[in-house]
Each structure stands twice: as C-alpha cells, then as structure tokens.
C-alpha cells in the first residue's frame, strides 16, 4: 500500500491534501450509500414479514375481541388464536413487538369486555415480561417505551417501579414515569411530591387526559398542591379544579388569591367556577393591583358575575393607559348592559366590537 502511494512523495502538499480530502469524502459517500442500501433491504424484509404475519395477527385479535362480546364458543377460539399468536410471538423480538403494538392499538379502540380481553391476551402471551424487561435497559428511550406499554396495558401492580425514574437525567423518561404514575398509582399526582422542575404544558395536557379517564372518586385533592414550590404545579392544580368542576374548593381558591403571585390565573379559575363568593375580594383587588393582566382577569370576572354596581369600576378603567384593559372594561360594560355615553371614537368602536355576536 505504502509503495503504491509513493507517487505522492513528489507532489505539492496542496495536492496531497486535496487527494486526502477526496479519499475521505469518497469513503463517506460509499458509507452512506451502503447504509441506504442496508436500510432498504431491511425495510423490504420487514415489509415482507409484515405482509406475511400482520393479517393473521390482526385477524386473530379481532376474532378474540368479537368472541368476547358475542360470548359463544369463546374457549375454543380463544385458545386456538392464542396458540397461534404465541407461535408468531416466539419467532422474533420484532414480531413480538408488532403483536404488542397491535394489542395496544386494539385496546385503545375498544371498550367494555373486548377491552378487558385485550388485557387478558397481553397477560396470556406473557408480553408483560417483555415490557418489564425494557425497564432494565440502559437506553432511556427503551425504558420510557416499557413504561408506556405497561401504562397502556393497565398493569397497576408495577407502578412502584416507576418512582426511581422520576429523578432520571432524561426528560422523556421522567415524563413517561410521571404519566405512568398518573395512570397506575392509587394517588395519581403522587409524583408532584418529588417535582423539582417545571411541569411543561405538554405534560399538563397529557396528565389531564389521563385524569379524565378516571372516576371522580379516584381524583386527587388538587388543593393539596396549591402551595407547591413549583408555580407550574400550582397552575396545573388550579386548572384541574376548574376542569373537574370542584366547586367545593372555591374557599381554598379565594384563600390562594390572597397569597399567590399569579392572581390572574386564580381569578380566571374563580370566573369559570362562577364563584359569587369571590366578588367582594375581586372588587377590592382590582383597585389595589397595578398588573394589567390581573386587572383584565378581574374585569372579565366582573363581566361574568358582576352587576350594575360595577359601573364605578368600569368608569375607573375606561381611561386606563393599557389598551387591553380598556378593551376588557368596555367588554364588561357591554356584557352587563351598563349604559354609557361613548366619549371617543375608540370607545364607540370597542363597544360595537363587543356587541357583535360574530366577533364575540
């Protein structure tokens, strides 16, 4: 090899450099083209395998689901289908994952008996071990996937295994653990006790989606976290109070209003809960506050719950320097039918805006 490269000895260093770069680039081209070919081959093989097994997996799972509802000849068909699925599952890990994915998909789309039968199939095919094995992986994504599978298949006995992942360095894994605990733990928001970081909006939405599927008895006491060190956790619990119509927590919310920094969030919640009890507090707060956002929330609250007596408040804020505050004040007047003489073109225009049904 060295003797073959002897010709470079007499060459200009620039030429040697260009030659070197070209060789490296050519190597990289060959590398990526080979990767494309390998990926294509593997995809084609997968597709072929899928074409071979997929219809059977789907057919047998559908048959099991139908039989569970019809309730005739269940034992025979169930055992036969299970035996078949087991044979398929044993062929390779990839196929086992396909079976698992399909069971999860079917379970998500089915309710009642059929849904329960999918859980049974999951157990009988021993796929739980398969999901549990993922929890031991060094790859965080694999662990998160395992949690996701166990959560989807409602394996309540394993929830305690998720706690150790709450402190993981991987964001996705931490989130998967929190969501898993929300679904499976007896106290769905138990993870909030360990929460040190911000609860992202995405996570809040995902937790809410999981809480929605629970019976009201299983829902936690949200007021327990009103004074959590993480503002995002407080915001989430206040939001949940509204979403689940916890009217009995109105006194706690009013109490929170006195101490929290994010007053507008609490006032918005009180508005949604139509908390008449909070009216005097809000009337007092609106005059004290300098924060435009809090004033807007107060005006919206009064527009929703207030009465003619709010006229003086309207007159105070109609000349406010902040546009949004003025707009909210006119909105309140329009909603409460407070009559006033519009002194400016802007007020007139704002009033027309609020009175128009298509806009509001």
């Amino acid at each position: 090899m060295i003797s073959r490269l002897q010709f470079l000895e007499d060459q200009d260093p620039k030429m040697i450099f260009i030659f070197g770069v070209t060789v490296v680039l050519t190597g990289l081209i060959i590398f990526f083209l080979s990767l494309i070919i390998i990926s294509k081959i593997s995809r084609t093989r997968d597709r072929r395998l899928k074409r071979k097994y997929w219809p059977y997996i789907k057919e047998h799972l559908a048959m099991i689901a139908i039989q569970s509802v019809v309730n005739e000849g269940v034992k025979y068909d169930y055992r036969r289908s299970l035996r078949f699925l087991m044979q398929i599952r044993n062929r390779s890990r990839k196929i086992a994952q396909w079976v698992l994915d399909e069971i999860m998909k079917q379970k998500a789309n089915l309710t009642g008996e059929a849904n329960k039968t999918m859980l049974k199939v999951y157990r009988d095919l021993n796929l739980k071990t398969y999901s549990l094995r993922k929890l031991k992986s060094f790859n965080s994504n694999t662990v998160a996937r395992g949690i996701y599978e166990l959560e989807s298949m409602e394996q309540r006995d394993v929830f305690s295994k998720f706690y150790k992942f709450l402190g993981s360095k991987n964001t996705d894994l931490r989130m998967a653990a929190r969501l898993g605990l929300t679904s499976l733990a007896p106290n769905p928001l138990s993870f909030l006790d360990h929460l040190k970081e911000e609860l992202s909006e995405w996570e809040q939405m995902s937790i809410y989606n999981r809480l929605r599927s629970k019976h009201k008895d299983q829902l936690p006491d949200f007021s327990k976290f009103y004074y959590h060190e993480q503002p995002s956790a407080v915001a989430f619990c206040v939001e949940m109070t509204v979403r689940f119509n916890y009217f009995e927590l109105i006194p706690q919310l009013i109490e929170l209003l006195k101490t929290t920094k994010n007053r507008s969030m609490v006032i918005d919640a009180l508005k949604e809960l139509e908390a008449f009890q909070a009216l005097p507090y809000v009337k007092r707060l609106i005059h004290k506050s300098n924060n435009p956002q809090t004033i807007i929330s107060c005006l919206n609250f009064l527009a929703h719950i207030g009465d003619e007596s709010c006229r003086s408040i309207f007159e105070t804020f109609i000349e406010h320097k902040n546009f949004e505050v003025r707009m909210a004040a006119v909105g309140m007047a329009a909603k409460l039918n407070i009559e006033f003489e519009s002194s400016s073109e802007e007020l007139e225009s704002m009033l027309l805006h609020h009175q128009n049904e298509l806009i509001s």
Partner: protein
Amino acid sequence: MNIWTILTHIVDFFVLGFSVSLTICYLFLSCVSFFAIRKYMRRRSLYRVNDIISSPMAPSVSLIAPAYNEGMTIVENIRSMLSLEYNNYDVIVVNDGSKDDTLEKVIKAFDLIQVPLHVNAKVSTQEIVSVYKSQNRSFKKLTIVNKVNGGKADALNAGINVSSSRLVACIDVDCVLENDALQRMVKPFMEDSSVIASGGVVRIANSCEIEHGKLINVNLPKNMLARFQVLEYLRAFLLSRMAWARLNGLLLISGAFGLFDRKLILKAGGYSTDTVGEDMELVVRMRSMMTRAGKKFRVTMIPDPLCWTEAPSTNKVFEKQRNRWARGTYEVLQKHTYLFFNSKYKITGLFGYPFWFFFEWMAPLLEFCGAVYFIFLLFTGSVSWTYFLSLLVMFYCFSIFISSFTLYAEEISFYKYKGVKDQLRLLAAALLEPFIYHPRVVWASVKGNIDILKGVKSWGEMTRSGFSSKTKVAELKKVTTISN
C-alpha cells in the same frame, strides 16, 4: 518569485482554505443533524400527538395567510386551512389589495358579512379597509381582513394585529398543509416554555396528487428543475436547518410555514417591510432581542414534512425566486452587521451569522469569481490541469457526499419517496446536479447581488403552474365535454 506567482499562490490558498472550512462545517452539521433526527424519531414513538386534537388545554393558534390575486385557488385553499386537525385555531386571510376577484369569491363562498372588529394596530400597517366574518357557524373560525396593498410582510403584520391567539402560524396561502401540521408544530411550544419560534419542513409538491387542498399522493416531480429542488430542499431542511436548530442557532424559518409566539413578534415590531427576506429578518431580530434581554430562548425545527409547496418549474421563475432570496439574504445580513463575530450574541453572532455570511451569501459570489479566474487562466495558458481537475473531483465528491447523507436522512426518517425508481432518480439528480443545476443557482445569486447594486427592491412575479389535482382533471374533462 514575481508578483503574479505570489498572487496565484494567495488565490490558491484562499480557495483551498475556503473549501476546507466549508467541508468541515458541513461534516459537522451532518453529524449534528444525524443525531438530531435520530433522537426525534426515537422520541416520536413515545408521544401521542393526537391527544392534542380534542384537548381543551391546547394553545390557541391563528393561521395567517396573506393573499394577493389568488382568485383562482383561494376558496379551495381556505377550505383546506379550515379542515386541519386541531381544536383551538382560527384562520385569518389577509387580502392584500388584490386586483382580481379574490375578495368577492371568498365573500360568496363563505357567506361573509362585514363586522366592526376593533383592531389594536400594535404594528403599523397599511389601512385595514374592512374585516369579514362568516354568518355560517361552520366557518366561524374564518376571518377575512381586506386591506390596502402593502406587500407580504405588511399583510402578515395586519393579520398579527387582528389575531388574539397565543401563537401565530404565518403561511403562504397556496401551500398545502398536512392535517396534523398544527399539532406537531405546537408541541415544541408546549414542551418548552422558552421556545419562541418553530419551523416545519417544506417539501416540493410538483407532480404530487392534490385533491381539495389535501395531499393524496406523493410523487417525485417529473420536471427536472423541480426534481433538483427536491434534493436541495431536503438538504436545506434535513441537514442544515435541523442541525442549526439542534445547536440553537437557527436564523431562518421558512416564510411558507412558521409558528411564532404572537406577543414576542409584536414586541420585536412585527415583520420588516423594507426587505424581501422578511422571514429570516424576523427570526434574526427576535433572537437579537431575546439575547439583549438576557432571556433564555429556543428556535426549533420539526423534521416532519408538514407543508407542501409548488417549486418553480421554469428557468425564468426559478431565477426570479433565487434572485430574490439572494437579495433577501444580503439585506438581512446588512441590517444586522452588529452580529458579525459578536460574542455578546453567542451562537447567533459567533457561528450563525458568519455561516450565512461566508457560506450562504459569499460562496456563490466566490464560485463565480473562481469561474471567471479560470477563464482568465485559460486564456493566458497558465492552467494547472492536474490541480484544476483534482479540485473539481474534490468538490464533486463533496456535493455527492452531502446529497447521499441527505438521502440517508430521508430514508431513516420520513421516507416519502418510497419506490426504488424514485430513489434512483434522486440519486441521478444528485450526480447531475453539480453540472446542471448548481451553475444556475450561482448565476441567479450573482444576478441578485447585481440587482442589489442597482437598487432593485421588488419581489418579482411568481407564476405557478398549479398542482396536479384529481379535481382539476375532472373539471377539465367536464369543460371539454360541454364544449364538445
């Protein structure tokens, strides 16, 4: 050693130095982009993006689409925008003083009436003449703003003034969005409160089958120029922008589809109306503003193909577009010269801006100068053919390497061109591109820079040939039958 030899040596080393830095930069970007795409694909399976469709906790989004003389397709485009899978969004179409029947057609199709919407013009724009809402509850999401012509940036600013949503998606009205485009774009904002803007991958829709404003079938363009652009777009989005987003140094979110925090756009002063590169200018300005304020921020990029657009398929239109892009790049760079190697602006100043300056704006000019220099050497008979051919082979290999990496990135990610034939065609395009397509890009860019010197500021008309649509074919057949 005479002056001539010294000069030749200096040019040689400059060319070599430049090409080496370019190669190193792209190699580095390729690595970053590879890991970013792989991470995204792994994470993708852990989330149920569909959860957001029906969630009352989804952030509000306004889809703002400026329209100018779009009478031919506007109704279908609006229908497409109204049918996206997202719970909490509205559509604001800004008729930017169209001279055709755009407004009349929309009023008729969507049963619109004028409403007294009070607009707080936080960003100054041309006068808003009227605002329309639909009387039909099915179209309650739709708002049409009719204003005096002021250009795309001005129309977008008017739409932002009218919007009251938390996020605004600025799009081209003729783009075709994937049904789940908003769900995917909103996710980064929900995951990380420091995200200020997010961009989606734009793909070429030429030869694709589009029905009622929805993408039915993805095909590789039959037109060779459009096919080269497929490769170029893949490279730009999957390699370059993905990597820059990962490094948090992304300076450009395509004007075809980008999602922004509305309050921050307003704080930054909205789109600039004195540049043709308003999309890049806004991102650069927002980044500078956030850095100056000492706030943590991120500009992200979603590798999912979310938006499909028609690429120019004739040389004339293509040249106009690239000319505008070159002018836009120059204007933005010129407007923000304070960023150049400015460590105060961190990655934007130290890497993002210089990269755009050297490799996006200056590279085509240098290539052109190189070509002129070569011709000069040819006439003087002083060409070192071995050196020239070696350089040529190296650059060719570099180009193929970048394209092959892009094709691999597409293969492991979204795999839109499924057939082996399509893959081979793309590979053939990659092999031919440096000789057929690249010189055109360089030439258009040089012309754009000449136009800067001339003081040209216009957008230039962009004529489109339209998508291959089942509906359109059916309509055409109907017309033919009637006329027969």
